[in-house]
């Protein structure tokens, strides 16, 4: 009989549990993820071989992000002013609907038929492909991994490597089936096929969409990193470039980018730098021969201001979207990205999604973790992820009428029964008398331990209390020592 058997397991949101269960049974998926995550972890470690440099750089990254957040509204205004001065049109959206409206109005004005996208997780929050598609506008992904998942009508399963859940054979099948090319498993050939298809799309597109890795307030600059070149293509070839980003992505100074860029590329893929670092500060100027005529930036809130409002939860917004947390997460490794069912998977997904869609929609996110802390250990900007998960659990089990209201969906896992159990547990553990009575009962009645204690015995033999508690043995031992027959 242990405390754990007294906790009634509140019915878990079926979707997450079902998805996790399916993923766990999918050997192919687990193997794909295991080897991919191992590889990414090794790469990151090799890239940060100097522990001193690594820890000080993480501290600097954290300080730079904290400084930016501490001045966020001022920096956003400064960013807007400088971007505007540079000829970039800045738009603000509280919700994804508003953001989509902004994009649609630009598309309509330009009579756009084809949109080509560089990689943007914010555009996934917006479900931009779907929204534009419903209006008859082709919105095609150009990042190879994103292109692959789009072709297969899937969502990305990782924020840096969207098709990481697939192996070469699966991609070969997909290309063969959907593109009609000869079957080939050769990765170089598959990439060349993608290159050929997408080159035509860069050529034709009316609008290019991108994300933003860092928006520099000081100079009015959008900084984008990539290895493939599709980002540069999407932001240079089409006559219109729309960049979409979260309001938290602004940094104060250009020099602030230096440590963040190093942390990002080394944490994500173990690279000293990406193939391209693309710094855009405006549309085509008179006399320039290429580049978009129009450049737009859409600043999206979508729940970030909720995280911002609470000093502890605000740290969630330090994130520079490197993916290291999910690469090191033993839960993510085993269930993959799709099981989370939302845009951002893994540890960062667990702490940011509740702000974006409300806790009621993702009530299990905060609990999808053993709090092992591997994520917090590698986060380049030192987000205290385990502490934030714990905090979200606290918000999750608050009474629905509890105040202050911190979050949408607060109290979505509230259970009177569960609360009662924990109250009893607290009473038991704060009263030496009660606790000793409990110990006596548990040890004496150990033979009555049922062999099936619900979720515990799914994976373990039934736990049996010892014949005597430590309280008992210690008291006897110490009494003997002091010669005091108690």
């Amino acid at each position, binding site marked *: 009989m242990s405390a754990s058997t007294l906790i009634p397991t509140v019915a878990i949101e079926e979707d997450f549990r079902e998805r996790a269960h399916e993923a766990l049974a999918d050997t192919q998926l687990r193997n794909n993820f295991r080897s991919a995550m191992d590889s990414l972890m090794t790469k990151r470690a090799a890239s940060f071989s100097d522990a001193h440099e690594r820890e000080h750089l993480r501290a600097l990254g954290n300080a730079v992000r904290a400084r930016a957040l501490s001045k966020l509204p001022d920096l956003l205004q400064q960013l807007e002013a400088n971007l505007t001065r540079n000829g970039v049109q800045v738009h603000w959206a509280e919700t994804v609907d508003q953001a989509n409206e902004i994009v649609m109005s630009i598309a309509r004005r330009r009579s756009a038929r084809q949109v080509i996208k560089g990689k943007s997780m914010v555009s996934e929050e917006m479900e931009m492909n779907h929204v534009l598609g419903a209006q008859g506008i082709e919105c095609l992904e150009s990042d190879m991994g994103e292109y692959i998942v789009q072709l297969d009508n899937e969502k990305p399963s990782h924020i840096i490597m969207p098709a990481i859940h697939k192996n070469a054979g699966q991609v070969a099948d997909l290309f063969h089936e959907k593109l009609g090319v000869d079957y080939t498993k050769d990765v170089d050939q598959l990439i060349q096929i993608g290159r050929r298809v997408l080159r035509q799309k860069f050529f034709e597109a009316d609008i290019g969409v991108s994300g933003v890795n860092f928006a520099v307030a000081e100079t009015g600059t959008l900084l984008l990193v990539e290895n493939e070149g599709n980002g540069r293509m999407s932001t240079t070839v089409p006559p219109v470039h729309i960049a979409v980003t979260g309001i938290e992505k602004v940094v104060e100074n250009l020099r602030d980018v230096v440590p963040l860029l190093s942390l990002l590329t080394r944490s994500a893929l173990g690279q000293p730098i990406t193939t391209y670092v693309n710094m855009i500060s405006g549309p085509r100027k008179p006399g320039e021969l290429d580049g978009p005529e129009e450049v737009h930036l859409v600043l999206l809130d979508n729940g970030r201001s909720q995280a911002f409002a609470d000093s502890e939860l605000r740290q969630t917004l330090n994130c520079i979207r490197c993916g290291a947390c999910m690469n090191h997460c*033993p839960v993510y490794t085993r269930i993959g990205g799709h099981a989370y069912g939302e845009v951002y998977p893994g540890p960062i997904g667990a702490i940011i999604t509740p702000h974006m869609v409300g806790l009621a929609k993702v009530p299990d996110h905060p609990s999808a973790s053993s709090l092992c802390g591997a994520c917090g250990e590698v986060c380049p900007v030192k987000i205290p992820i385990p502490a934030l998960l714990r905090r979200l659990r606290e918000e999750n089990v608050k009474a629905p009428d509890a105040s202050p209201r911190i979050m949408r969906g607060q109290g979505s896992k509230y259970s009177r029964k569960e609360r009662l159990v924990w109250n009893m547990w607290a009473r038991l553990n*704060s009263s030496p008398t009660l606790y000793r009575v409990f110990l006596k009962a548990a040890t004496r009645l150990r033979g009555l331990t049922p062999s099936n204690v619900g979720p*515990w015995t799914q994976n373990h033999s039934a736990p049996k209390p010892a014949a005597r508690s430590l309280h008992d043995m210690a008291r006897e031992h110490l009494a003997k020592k002091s010669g005091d027959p108690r």
Partner: protein
Amino acid sequence: MSELFYNAVPNATRVAPPLPTPRQYPSHKPRKVYLFGTCVVDLFFPEAGMDAIHLIEREGIAVDYPQGQSCCGQPAYTSGYTDQAREVARSQLALFAEDYPVVVPSGSCAGMLREHYEDLFKDEPETLLKVHALADRTFELTEFLLFVCKVQFKDSGAPVKVALHTSCSARREMNTHLHGREMLAQLSNVERIDHSHESECCGFGGTFSVRMPDISGAMVADKTRSLIETGAHQVLTADCGCLMNINGSLEKQKQALRGQHLASFLWQRTGGQQ
């Protein structure tokens, strides 16, 4: 360190605490220590608690085991029941009030005392003083034996291969994995073998193991397989939550391999009588 931001405006943007400096240990053995047994040891592995007491007493140090102790509060804390955790933590604080070191045969519970009691009492400046004082004199068992007692163990056992598993919070909050390794390295007949994915969580995570049994089960299955693959005769750990998890799984799988608390192993290997 956290005094800095607890004195700041409550809605101030937080900066991570400064990088920790290596812990300074007392230069002399104390005459007396408290033992904080932990609830899991109390009910499921009391022999580990007794062996911890034996190991300490053999160093000439008296052990006080306050009978009023129960649990550090971690299960409620990690489940989001902060008020309940605070209630239990407060009662423990009162029991370890004298200025003796508190030795804990569990890295995760030691970590709770040292790192998280701060958070529980962040709105009570006076209690915080007690919390800081307690944190300063809280030691995980292996740490205490190595750096305060400066033990030099002599191995009196037959050659054996072991695998060492360290709980995540012990590893990340208390560096227990390093202390465990150093401790075992003192035993000449003990060969310690690294298991694959050594630093990966065993899947216990307290209530995680019952809330998410599918995922937890997958993690402990991988952990046990990795431990078995080392060919070790024995699994050792300084954390009883993990021990319960790993042993429970091994038993269900009908595997021969079992885990033992590091304290018991050390006591037995160095000539201690049961």
